């Protein structure tokens, strides 16, 4: 299972690699990073939608996280569909509502509580 982290902030890669360094070292989690929704789509096109958990920010320049969600849901309908978790700024209730109706599997708010994220990722570990 590869976790595709989509965020326009470049430092998010370092943060995730450090936060999940134990899981990465023990190869229980695989991470891929995309700096835009387009890169995420490119990644999916290359690797296919299987065994990918997308963790995407909503507010990004160009294609937004919600656009990505819509594209993935329409481009990869076959089961099992990719698990998609959306990340937004604190308290952005309309985005939450929209993300959930557009078919997001889960929702995280910034700042990311990594313990919570780790718990949410637990079911997918080792798949």
């Amino acid at each position: 299972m590869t976790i595709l982290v989509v965020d326009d902030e470049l430092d998010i890669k370092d943060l995730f690699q450090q936060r999940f360094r134990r899981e990465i070292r023990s190869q229980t989690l695989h991470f891929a990073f995309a700096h835009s929704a387009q890169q995420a789509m490119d990644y999916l096109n290359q690797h296919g939608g299987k065994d990918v958990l997308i963790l995407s920010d909503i507010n990004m320049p160009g294609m937004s996280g919600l656009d990505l969600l819509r594209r993935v849901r329409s481009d990869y309908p076959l089961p099992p569909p990719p698990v998609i978790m959306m990340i937004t700024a604190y308290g952005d209730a309309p985005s939450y509502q929209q993300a959930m109706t557009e078919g997001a599997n889960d929702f995280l708010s910034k700042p990311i509580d990594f313990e919570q994220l780790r718990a949410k990722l637990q079911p997918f570990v080792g798949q």
Partner: protein
Amino acid sequence: MKTLVAFLLVSLCLTPCLAQDTTLTLTNRMFSSDQLINLSTMRDWVFKAGQNPGWASPALNTTSWTKRRPSDLSIKDADKTGRAEGWFRCRIRLDSTFEGMQLGVFSYCWAAVDLYVDGRLITSFGNTGANGRPYAEHYPYYQKAAPFDLTTGQDHLIALHVVDYVSPFSKNQLKAQLEGGTSKIIRIVGPKTFNWLHVNARLSPVYSAIWLTVSFLLATLFWLLVFQNLYERSLIRLLAIGETLLVFASIGLMMEVLEPAFIYEVIVYRISGVLLGVAIAFLPITLLRVLNYPSSRRIDSFIIGISVLGSSLTAYTNTGLPSSLATVLQFLFFFALLIWARKKIKGALWAIVTGAFLTIAFALGYAILQLSSFFNPHLGYAATGFFLSLPLSFLVYIALRFKEIVAEDRAKAVAVVQITEEKRQLLATQNQRLEQQVETRTAQLNQSLIDLRATQAQLIQKEKLASLGELTAGVAHEIQNPLNFVNNFAEVSTELIDELKEGPFQKLPDSEKGYADEILGDLSSNLQKINHHGGRASSIVKGMLEHSRTESGERRPTDLNALADEYLKIAYHGLRAKDKDFNADLKTNFMTDLGRIEVVPQEIGRVLLNLYNNAFYAVIKKQKLAPSGYQPTVTVSTHQFNGQLQIRVSDNGTGMPESVKAKIFQPFFTTKPTSEGTGLGLSLSYDIVTKGHGGTLTAESEPNQGTVFTIALPLT
């Protein structure tokens, strides 16, 4: 005087009858009550037509003469030229009763008469022409008597040479026959009447002049009043007309003094009679007007008609009866009117009533005097009284009436002045009231202006706050991400240091361990500091982001009393958990039947919590400074009025100056020390109340007295 007599009944009564004797001896018993003997009607006269100067001689034989009295002279004696001329002779003797008595003789007819006694011409009435001078008729009225001095107890021959002409008014009458004048051709008077005739001849012009003058003056006055166009004009015009008629009648009377010729005398006499009759008719007509009866042409014409008819008949028939009847009728009508309308008589009207009574009284007096004696010295006064009392009474009436009118006018003027004064006062009052109203309105307008300016300032402030809030939110958003990295990297770095300590650190030589451990300890401590301050910044950003939260909790009907109470306890106990020494009085004053209101309870709760915390902070701060005995108190009360629910949170804490109060709702404004407040609480509360619930959040404060925050929420 004769003219006036014609209008009175009494004038008809006197025709004395004398005893007759062939040899005429006169005695003073033959005197009438007027001391008058009418020689013309004696039987002992002989007559011969024609003219002969010798016929006066006492010795003349008169057997061929006709036995005829002077009173029998008539139109038959006139020749073809209309001239009647002849001589009457008579022998008389005065008995001893006339001894020493001053007798007089006079003629009361228009014929020219020469009187001879014992062949000597004693006196002439008019001019017969026998003396060669032209004929002149005798003017009979207001004449003095000629002295008639006969020796008593002796016979005397009286001879009359009489010349007369046919009347120009009637072919059947001589001029002397007018009013039975022939029977008065020669009259003997005693001393009393002799004197009276003397006085009468002298005073008649004076009376006439008085009547004319007074009438003229009154008429002039009345006409002036009419043309002055003053009050009661129609009434005064009537008086003026009546008085003018009297003036003309008086002119007629006055003319008699001038001894006009027969033809003028007769015409003037009749015209005067008619005028006098009509003038008298104006009395009842005037009275009708004075008594305020509506003017009626028919009644007026009727009254005047009676007068004209009466006086015309009198003029025509030469008897006073019709005219006197008309006068009596009018007087009766006059009195009937006075009696009928006696209740209307008041004030000035009494003058007329008095005048009317005086007139009648003088008329009666005149009649009585004349009944007793034709030649009464007081007749002149009675006539004057009769003539003038009523006109003068009208003058008095007008004077009194004018006085009344002036009084009425004065009363009216006073009333007008009073009304004017009242109106002026009313106006003044109204002006005052108006001024007060204007002042009130101006004050209200000024207040409105002040309110408007305040509102404008508030609006500007609100706008500033709103844009500041948005800016804050934007800033927060931008800061959030880097801050997250700072916090996350700090945390993960701490983990990395822990890992380093457990792993590679152990493999260091012991000599290096101490120094490395010291460095790692410092790094770890720094990271903790970074984490701590990052956390502070995060909580600030979190607060700031509350401003931008567009979505809020669900609104639901909420019992504000319960909510306020619940959060008060939360705040108090939260504070007590930190500071066990703190104690404060909590007072609640809730309106019992406060309705439920649709709010987001969590948000209003946050606001309340904020206000409570501030209130507690203020009382704690004051407690530290205040002398003992200070009892920190926080009060919360609810109210409902003007379509609003209000929650008031008040404390008796430090309060705040105006300069602070002006800024409390601005984000990041705080008076607390750096670590104790973010300066966002009230700013957020303000947003929740105003933007979120459409209400208002206001603060009132007195430094050192306390602060009151009021949340006002609209019920709809």
